[in-house]
Each structure stands twice: as structure tokens, then as C-alpha cells.
């Protein structure tokens, strides 16, 4: 086992123990959150009363805002379109890249989409 400094890192133990530290770190975060902000429970479901303030989970807020702005059929097809583009992406964009510059247009477009999602989510929290 002892090969001195020449030994190349292997999955075990090098990466394995790094992953274990990440495991412990992330479990620490989750435990802390559940202790500090216990989740409790809300009102039981009632089919005849929609709560007066109803927001989806934060990761769907952008879609919630989109549904306010476009007809439902278009709104519901947007996430499927995004998924289709993401699945096809590696088959369309096969060009080899070596530098940041080669890839810059994808970075700009990706950042713009992310920004749009942030703006829409923020807009939804304002209730506009």
C-alpha cells in the first residue's frame, strides 16, 4: 500500500472520505434546519375552500407567475419545451471546446434564462 508520494489518488480512500465529509456536512445542515424551523402541519384539505393566499413551492413560483401571464395551454407546455431542449442539447451542440471563449454564447443564454427564472419567482412573491 505504501508507495509514498507517487501513489495516485483512488476512489477509496481519497474520494470516499471527501464524500463522507460532504455527507456529514449536508446532514448537519438538514438537521439544523429541521430543529431551528420545525415544519409542523397546516389545515386539513378542504375541497370547497381555496386558502386566501396560496403559493406553490418556491421552485415552482416562476411557473406560477408564467401561468398568470400566458394562456394555460402555452403555460403548461413551457416546462416540457425546456426539458425537450435540455435533452436534445448534447446532440445538437457537439462542438469541442477548450476555452471559456468557445462556450461563451451558451453561458450567456443560460445565465439569461436563469435570471429570467429568478425575476419571475421574485415577481410572484410580490403577488403582482
Amino acid at each position, binding site marked *: 500500500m505504501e508507495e509514498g508520494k507517487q501513489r495516485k489518488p483512488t476512489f477509496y480512500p481519497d474520494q470516499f472520505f471527501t464524500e463522507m465529509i460532504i455527507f456529514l456536512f449536508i446532514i448537519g445542515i438538514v438537521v439544523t434546519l429541521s430543529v431551528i424551523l420545525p415544519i409542523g402541519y397546516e389545515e386539513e384539505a378542504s*375541497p*370547497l*375552500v*381555496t*386558502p*386566501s*393566499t*396560496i403559493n406553490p413551492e418556491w421552485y415552482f413560483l416562476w411557473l*406560477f407567475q408564467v*401561468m*398568470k*401571464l*400566458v*394562456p*394555460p395551454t402555452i403555460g403548461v407546455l413551457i416546462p416540457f419545451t425546456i426539458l425537450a431542449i435540455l435533452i436534445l442539447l448534447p446532440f445538437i451542440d457537439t462542438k469541442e471546446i477548450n476555452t471559456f471563449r468557445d462556450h461563451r454564447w451558451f453561458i450567456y443564454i443560460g445565465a439569461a434564462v436563469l435570471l429570467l427564472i429568478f425575476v419571475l419567482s421574485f415577481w410572484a412573491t410580490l*403577488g403582482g
Partner: protein
Amino acid sequence: MDEKNTIEKENPTPSVSRRKLLRFITAFLGLFGLGAIFSSIIVFLTPPRSALKKVGGWQAVGNLSEFKENSMAKTYFGLPVILVKNGKGLLSFSTICPHLGCIVIWDEKKKQFFCPCHDAAFDENGKVLKGPVKPYNLLPMETKVEGETISVKLPEDKLPGYPSWFRITMISGV
């Protein structure tokens, strides 16, 4: 020598195409089998017709004596229906917002209904005022009074102009 010759004569090029054909048939049967399994799963998980219970037709929703002039009655017998009595008489319409199906809430101050989900608003006759539902009003329903009992007619058939989930939600009851 003779044996070898006959083998070569019996196994010339045709065997290649026969193998191709066999492979093709196997592939075809395989695909067909997979398709059959997949579609069977979908068919199995489709709710059977007898599980699709409809609530429709005339439904008693309340008593006339419970009503004052210009009052809003809440839902009765678990139906998403609201009754309005004003100068024109007794009106009833669905409280399901035609945008995505939330139940609208009566705002006494503004004298209008609003939808908590996507901010649609309707006036006291169910006419759409604002929101993402421009073409739709709250669905008006036929109302009749027999003696003291008020009944409304829930739609059973396709509603022209309204989305398909709206009909499903209307006939699903609670």
C-alpha cells in the same frame, strides 16, 4: 470431399438473408411484445368507467327562507355553487374559477369575487373583470324554486368554450 461440397452447396449466400430475416422477425416480435406490455400497463392504470361517478342534473342546494335580499349563500351540500339574490331574482353560478380551478372567494368590501390562485376577479353577476381568464365568466346555472327548496342544474355535457378540466371538476362532486 463430397460431403464438404454438399455442405458448401447447401449453405451459400441465401443463409445470410435468411438470418437477416430471422433477426428482423425477432426484433419485430420483441418490439411488439414491449409495446404490448407498455400499453397493457397504461390500460391497467386507466380508471375504469364504473369508477367515474358523475354528479349532475338537478341538485337541491338550500332553502328559500335562509335567504335575505342581496345575500350570498355559501356552498350547499358540498357543491361548488353560489347563490345570489338581488333585484333581478335568484341567480346561481359555479364558484370554480375557470382559469385553473381554484374556488373563488366573495369580497364583501369590493363587491366582487376573486380567485386566490392567479388573481382573477368577477363581478356579482359572475362576469369576469380581470385576470388571466378574459374569455370566461363564472359558469351560470339554471335555478328553480319548488316550494321552499332551491335547486340548481349542474352541467353534464361538454361546456362550449370552457376547458375540459372544468367539466371534469364540475361533475366530480366533492
